[in-house]
Structures are given as structure tokens and as C-alpha cells.
């Protein structure tokens, strides 16, 4: 197999990692909503922590996207 073809296949495989980010972020917001529906007054106080948790979870998905982009454009 030539290197070009292998790069494209590798880039496609690397995007599978984004599924984990989707599960993580969905889990996070789902739990937040479920808690917020039980205790709406406490929800706004935790919003900053929610956004921080979203960003660090999303980062792991972006790491796998980074591998895909590196394979496509930089290797």
C-alpha cells in the first residue's frame, strides 16, 4: 500500500476517537440537565464548572481530530 493511501485510511480511523468525546460531552450535559431539573436554583451556580468540564472533555476529542489533521496535512 502506498504511503498516501495509508495516510488517508489512518486519518479516517483517527476520527473514530471523536465518538468518545461525543459520549462524554453528552453524558456531562445530560447529568447537568437532570440535576438542574431537580434543583433549578442551584443550577446557575454550577454553570462555570459545567463549561470547564465540557472544555476538558472536548479536548480529548480534539486530540484525536488533531491526529487526523496531522496525517492529512503534515506527514
Amino acid at each position, binding site marked *: 500500500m502506498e504511503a*498516501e493511501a495509508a*495516510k*488517508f485510511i489512518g486519518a479516517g480511523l483517527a476520527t473514530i476517537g471523536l465518538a468518545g468525546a461525543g459520549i462524554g460531552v453528552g453524558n456531562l450535559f445530560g447529568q447537568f440537565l437532570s440535576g438542574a431539573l431537580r434543583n433549578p436554583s442551584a443550577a446557575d451556580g454550577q454553570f462555570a464548572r459545567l*463549561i*470547564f468540564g465540557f*472544555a*476538558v472533555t*472536548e*479536548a480529548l476529542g*480534539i*486530540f484525536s*481530530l*488533531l491526529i487526523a*489533521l496531522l496525517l*492529512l*496535512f*503534515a506527514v
Partner: protein
Amino acid sequence: MATKEGGGLDPIHQFEVKSFIEIIVGGVDLSFTNVSLFMLITTACVIALMALPTSGRALVPGRWQNVAEMCYEFAGNMLRDSAGASGMRFFPLVFSLFMFILIANMLGMFPYFYTVTSQLIVTVVLAMIVFLTVIIAGIRMHGLSFFKLFVPSGVPIYILPLVSLIEVISFISRPVSHSVRLFANMLAGHITLKVFAAFVVSLSALGTVGIIGAILPLGMTVAITALEFLVAALQAYVFAILTCIYLNDAIHPHH
């Protein structure tokens, strides 16, 4: 897409580093590049944003002074909530990092402006500043008992070496994830923007049907631009809040 398409339509062309003034000192390339230029512009914008409105020192702030005060209080509250009153000695560092990354990300959203945080070396330097500050501050404040950070309490003695090794590895991986998070978010965001913009151009080249169909990637480009503004601000906030958390670990080591 790995090769250059016609007319610079590839999404990597925007990250090209062009040097304006060649400066080579002893084999090391210290040229003044477009990256350097935009870092200077970022610094000038931050200084202008903070210094110009507050020069009047009005007791009831006008609009711009209010913006400067809001940025100051936001960063101050973030640091005080994470690291306590004794952590406020690091406020200049945290505030500078937060404002620099925020303005650098926002400046990158303008067309034809360079996003300096989309270069790995820039974010690695910022993360190493934080990492070295954490280590040096921790050792200066607590001496060698700073390294008790890697020995959590309540661990049975026979797996202590393994747990300590895992703690050290996870400590070393902090600047890696700290820098790559910001870098990858900015890089991926701008590449996505360019890819959708290239779709608009390549669809419109197909005649009138193409131009009508090009409205779809155009709408997507608008949506992704809005998302990129959010991500730009969010990544600056996440970088700063993680800095505050790491500084808290150094100042108040939990045994």
C-alpha cells in the same frame, strides 16, 4: 486534500509562517515573522484595552472602563476561587495569560489575520511558563516536601511506588495536555472554517445550480464562525482556570 489545490484553496495555506525581517544569530533563526507581528499586535491591543479606558479613573465607569474592570474582576475572581487569597500573588501571570490568549484567539477570527495560538510552539511556551512557575513556586514555598505531591495519603505501602510513578507521569503530562488543548482547538477550528469556505468556492464554480447549492456551505460557514468565537473565548477561560488549579496544587499541596 493533502496536495495543494488550485489557487491556494487548501486549508493549510493560512498557517504558513512568512518572515518579514530576516534575523539569523549564530545559526538560530530569530526572524521577525507574521507570527511575531501578530503577537505584538495582541500585546498592543491588551495594553490599549486596559490602559486607555482606565486613564480617566472615573468612579462610575463608562463603557470601555467597565469592560476593562470586568476583565480584571473575572480573572481575579477565578484565581481567588481556585487558589485562595494567598494565590493572588500570581494574579499578574494569570491575568496576562488570560488576556493574551483571549485577544490572540479573537484577533485570529478576522479574515487574513494570523492566529498565533494555532502554532504549537506558542502554546507550548505558554504552558511551560505555567509548568515552571508551578514547580519553582512550589519548591520555594515548601522546600523539598513539594514532592510529597506525588505521594498521596492513605495508599497501602506495597503499591506506593506504582502510584507515585503514575502521579509523576500524570504531572508531566499536564503541560502537554495544557498546550495541545489550546493548539488543537484553534488549528481544527480554523481548518474547518477554511474547508467549508473552500466548498462554497468550489460549488459556485459549477454554474447557477452550483451557486444556489453553495448557500448550504455558506450557512455552515456562518454557523462554524459563531462556534469559533465561542471556542476562542472558552479556550482562553479553560487555559486560565487550569493555570489557577495547577497553581493551587503548588501553593496548597494536599497530603
